[in-house]
């Protein structure tokens, strides 16, 4: 039982990171109907920016310092997201969707391999920005402060996102754009700017996920984004793509399911699990848990 609870805590910590990533997928899919393959690599860049910034600052480990690294990395990735959107996706706004998808794969490969050139292919060790201690130890079930920080940071970021999407003008415009580009344009919304905002916010969330992963699994390398990125996308589909609470639920389910499979069956099946879940969900309920079904029209 205690082993199960421990796996559950670990799984929820992973799940929160997946959820942060899945939010980016779901938001971009909402406004552009595009699977942003490069999203997982933006998360890698987030971790790398955090690594280099922290090494340059050499500030030891404290909470304000951690928040500073987090903020710098999020801003840097928001800018990266804007760049990607401007130069790779905007020229294809009116092209067939398959072209945009291929371009997204191209951007993903570019970030991975240019990253390998820039950062070196060997793994790096993320500095411990926070001292580690056990928050509680209940009959062998341990929750450490890093996991607590992951929960708190991702929870706060999701609250912030919820506020932005539901209460601000930009958020309202985003929801409008996700319904129809043309109609939004007709009522005076600057569609390109809204899409740019969506990319910026999604990429900032990915950067936060990258920093949080750096805290809990310090080994980072230029290819670290590929597999988590795909799994986070599966999480977004699982929760219902386009739905923000869906991304949260999907991410948490994915994290827990994966940790349980790795803990009780075999870690070699861990990577296959996500895709088995994907294929099953696509067959049983393609709209996901919270997604709404839409009729395809001519």
């Amino acid at each position, binding site marked *: 039982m205690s082993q199960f609870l421990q796996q559950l805590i670990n799984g929820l910590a992973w799940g929160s990171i997946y959820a942060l990533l899945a939010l980016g997928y779901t938001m971009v899919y909402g406004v552009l*109907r*595009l*699977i942003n393959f490069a999203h997982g690599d933006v998360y890698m860049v987030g971790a790398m920016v955090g690594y280099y910034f922290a090494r340059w600052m050499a500030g030891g480990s404290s909470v304000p310092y951690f928040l500073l690294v987090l903020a710098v990395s999020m801003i840097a990735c928001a800018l990266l997201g804007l760049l990607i959107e401007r130069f*790779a996706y905007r*020229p*294809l706004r009116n*092209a*067939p*969707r*398959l*072209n*945009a*998808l*291929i*371009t997204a*794969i*191209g*951007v*993903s*490969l*570019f970030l*991975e*391999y*240019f990253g*390998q*050139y820039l950062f070196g292919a060997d793994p790096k060790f993320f500095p411990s920005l926070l001292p580690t201690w056990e928050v509680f130890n209940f009959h062998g079930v341990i929750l450490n402060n890093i996991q607590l920080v992951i929960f708190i940071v991702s929870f706060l970021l999701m609250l912030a996102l919820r506020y932005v999407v539901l209460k601000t003008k930009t958020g309202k415009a985003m929801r409008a754009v996700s319904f129809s580009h043309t109609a939004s344009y007709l009522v005076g919304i600057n569609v390109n700017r809204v899409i740019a905002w969506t990319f910026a916010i999604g990429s900032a969330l990915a950067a936060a996920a990258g920093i949080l992963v750096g805290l809990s699994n310090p080994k980072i390398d230029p290819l670290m984004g*590929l597999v988590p990125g*795909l799994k986070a*996308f*599966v999480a977004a*589909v699982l929760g219902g793509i386009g739905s923000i609470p869906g991304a949260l639920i999907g991410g948490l389910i994915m994290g827990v399911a994966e940790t349980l499979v790795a803990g009780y069956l075999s870690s*070699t*099946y861990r*990577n*296959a699990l*996500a*895709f*088995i879940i*994907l*294929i099953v969900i*696509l*067959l049983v309920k*393609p709209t996901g848990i919270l997604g709404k079904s839409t009729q*395809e029209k*001519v």
Partner: protein
Amino acid sequence: MKKLLVIGSFLVLLVGIQFLLSKFFNPYLIQIIVLIGINLTMSTSLNLINGYTGQFNLGHAGFMAIGAYSSAAFSVFVHPILISHLPFVPESILKPMLFILSLGIGGVFTAISGLAIGLPTLRLRGDYLAIATLGFGEIIQVVINNMDSVGGARGFSDIPEYSNFFWVFMIAAITLWVVGRLTRSAKGMELLAVREDEIATVSLGISSTRVKVTAFVIGAFFAGLGGGLFAHFFTYLHVNSFTFLKSVEFIVMVVLGGLGSLWGVVAATILLTILPEALRAFSEWRMVIYSLLVIITMILRSKGISLKNVFARS
């Protein structure tokens, strides 16, 4: 009669080149040329699915892996039994027959897996299908890694060496011929119709799922042949040869050559197989150049590098 003459002279040409290659060329060059042939089979079969039918398959390396492992397993486990039961057949006849049998088994096995994957997933729209096929490619790797009878994570070694220039280019030519003929036939027009407008196609009474599954199964069959050729040329298999990146390589060939352009893809395949060898000195830049090529091709010329795209969108 004319057809027979063409086929006959093609075979003579292949045998002649094969003889010249084995006499005068070093193994490194032969390997590159053979790889061009294998990649031609792979990219042309992917072109049928991605280019002509417009279904985005991101797991073509998975099909290649199934073909490679199943045909290699047949060669390693079944061939010795067959050889011991047929002592009266001279080896020079028996060996090629067995190789064709191995390739066929690999192709059919892959086609069946293509059917099993395609039937459920091809009902999905473009981008979901892309992810589902990608997932399938990853699952294949995990499965092979855990299959001890074919070496698992150690790799599958001691596969008999049958592939050579002759076989590889004969299969490549057959693939090109079949795909070229198919896409110009009435049935092939259905593929193009599904690519251009699925809803309109369905409203004409054509089952788009059947069309897509057909393309998928044929593409998988040839990918399986490609895998079999690969296995019997390198005589050693490891799942790391069939990762997502391998699928991407084939996609880059198809995209750069022009989705649905037979000869454009041939040109791109030859170019992209030779290019990495020519750029050995800048090997860390190879994938960077690849990715930029994809992005720029998509933005500037979404129809690929081919000069004449027969089925270009108006």
